[in-house]
């Protein structure tokens, strides 16, 4: 079977703060038989500006996404649901005229990693192992833009269920936002932190030893708070758990 051509949309936060998540995404896609391209002129989807009320600035940056991916081939896959929500939901509304048609075509080609693997590659699980002795209790945090924005909850859970060495626990009120919210986390830091605390406390109450998500914004917010509080709670991107040899 010829390799399936896909394009990696790494997203700025993964690029700059969590490059290993990008590398693991590439390794996983290649393991699943994809040939991965990385359009080098990509920067950011523009969401921070749009969400903060600066659509003109967002468009300037979104233009780079359009230019970087418009002439590429195959699905565009990102390890970050929120940025995919930006492309799928907001791009077609932000643009008009000829650019809107390009944006709509790109939106239809853009997937977050779990939906691409489960929905497009038809793999319910891809293996993976949580390292260490025994079963680590993990709580999955559904990022809001994936849950509410894209309506995706099953795909990441399906992949997580295929991981050995861990068991899934369900914290109370798991549907609540963790309080990251992009620039919200900077502007209304106290509220943002209180929301993180509820998320962390309910995870601990459920016996979780680790929190897993696909949004590195949520992850750095939750881990940053857990570290400040000195909590014994690890935080991982889902793709970290999908390594075949438990390389975490």
């Amino acid at each position: 079977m010829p390799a399936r051509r896909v394009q990696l949309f790494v997203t700025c936060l993964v690029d700059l703060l969590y490059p290993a998540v990008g590398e693991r995404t590439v390794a996983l896609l290649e393991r699943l038989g994809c040939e991965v391209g990385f359009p080098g002129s990509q920067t950011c989807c523009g969401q921070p500006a749009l969400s903060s009320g600066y659509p003109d600035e967002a468009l300037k940056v979104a233009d780079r996404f359009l230019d970087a991916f418009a002439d590429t081939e195959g699905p565009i896959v990102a390890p970050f649901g929120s940025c995919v929500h930006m492309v799928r939901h907001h791009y077609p509304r932000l643009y008009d005229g000829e650019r809107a048609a390009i944006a709509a075509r790109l939106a239809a080609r853009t997937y977050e990693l779990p939906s691409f693997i489960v929905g497009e590659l038809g793999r319910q699980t891809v293996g993976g192992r949580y390292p260490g002795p025994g079963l680590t209790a993990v709580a999955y945090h559904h990022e809001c833009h994936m849950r509410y924005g894209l309506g995706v909850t099953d795909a990441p859970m399906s992949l997580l269920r295929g991981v050995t060495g861990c068991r899934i626990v369900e914290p109370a009120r798991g549907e609540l936002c963790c309080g990251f919210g992009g620039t919200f986390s900077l502007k209304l830091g106290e509220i943002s932190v209180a929301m993180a605390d509820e998320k962390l406390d309910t995870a601990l109450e459920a016996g979780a030893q680790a929190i897993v998500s696909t949004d590195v914004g949520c992850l750095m917010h939750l881990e940053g708070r857990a570290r400040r509080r000195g909590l014994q709670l690890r935080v991982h991107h889902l793709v970290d758990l999908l390594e075949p040899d438990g390389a975490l």
Partner: protein
Amino acid sequence: MTGASERELGPGRLVIEPPRRGPDPAVTPNLHRAAGNWATHRADARRRVEWEQWRERARDIRSDAVRNLPELLEMLEARVIAAGGQVHHARNAEQACADVVRICRDAGATRAVKGKSMTGEEIGLGPALALAGIDAVETDLGEYIVQAIGDRPSHIVAPAVHLSAAQVADLFTRESGRRFDPDDTAALVEYARGVLRARFLAADVGITGINLAVAETGTLAIVESEGNIRLTTSLPRVHIAVMGIEKVIRDWSGAAHLLQMLPLAAHGTPAAASTSFITGPARDGDDGPEEVHLVLLDGGRSAIRGTPFEEALHCIRCGACLYACPVYRQVGGHGYGSTYSGPIGAVITPLLARDGDAAELRGSSLPGLSTLCGACVEACPVKIPLDDQLVMLRHLTHQRDPARAEAALFAAWARLWSRPASYRATAATAGRALRPLWSALARDGWQRRAPFPFSGWTEGRDARAPDPEPFHLRWRRVRGGG
């Protein structure tokens, strides 16, 4: 923050204060309990009906109403008058309050009973009546408590949700001199009922809001769970209903659907405990008021029609988006500083406050009070795209004040990140050139202090340091090109 610095109380003004910047520990336990109950009931509701289809239908009913508003209002007015009622048009809050006061005076009324009404709160009706020397008491238990404490309602449906039973017991103990046990809710309710019963019997006028008005018959529908609405609209000689013009709907088929949707969304129950349908005053020999007055309030609503915010007028005031909102959950209704709180409040407050004047968007920091998580959109029984509207409003409120530092910051950011070379240069600067500065603060790639504009982050959280070798460099090192 701009725009929301005024506190304007009294007749004819939306209450607008700067929103809270932190959680309110005095109310969060009460809110968390109430929101938890709501979430349980909502799950039940979704098992009872084809929720998504019901939402579609509810949205269609509301969108028909808002799109055809002038026609439906004309029909409503004609049918109310034909049924013997009287209709008053108020362009703004001042006029609406003046109408109510005038009707009271014409009726020689000095004592009024009020039903719970967010529109009444919106126009400052309580203070307006007090100023006019009309003794008006709130008869909804939650509103009665809030009024007695000198507070404001903090939730569209549950005005006293921020208070605990203990606070209510304290209030009633102070009021009556009797001792109340917070756990004995039956005694608390019994006490309020006794106090209120006397007020109902003495009242000359009953004043309510409405939940919807059926244009085809001129009927006003009001839902409730306590029986106070029935008494308010039937015992006094005069009934005055104040409604926002957008609450009209075309027909009874729509009414039947929305009157199920509203309690489903609000409480997870398919019907309110009781619903009053009022079509004009009492006919000969019937019980009921001699006069029924309908005050139609525009208050900035017409100006929202035909704009990208039109769907905000679809709101049926169920309060679901408040309970679903993770930010409301932390700051409470008063945290918004506005009459309407929660996600819908953050949207409609600035829109209504401009009162038809498009150049003015007050209350403008409210749209920031959201993480844009989308839980409100999912909860909304009429599918208002609240998150998209909040994003658009953030833009409009910024436009009002282009001088702010944030705008300059985003302009600079857009210049840098709209070109791959300068994007990579910022990454290299952050990840490598500043490394010596940060490595002193960082441990395992995390640091306890971050520079501007990220300094707010490290007040409560450690910050992840930029990686010295970002992904795009790793890719180039391993694969070349790029």
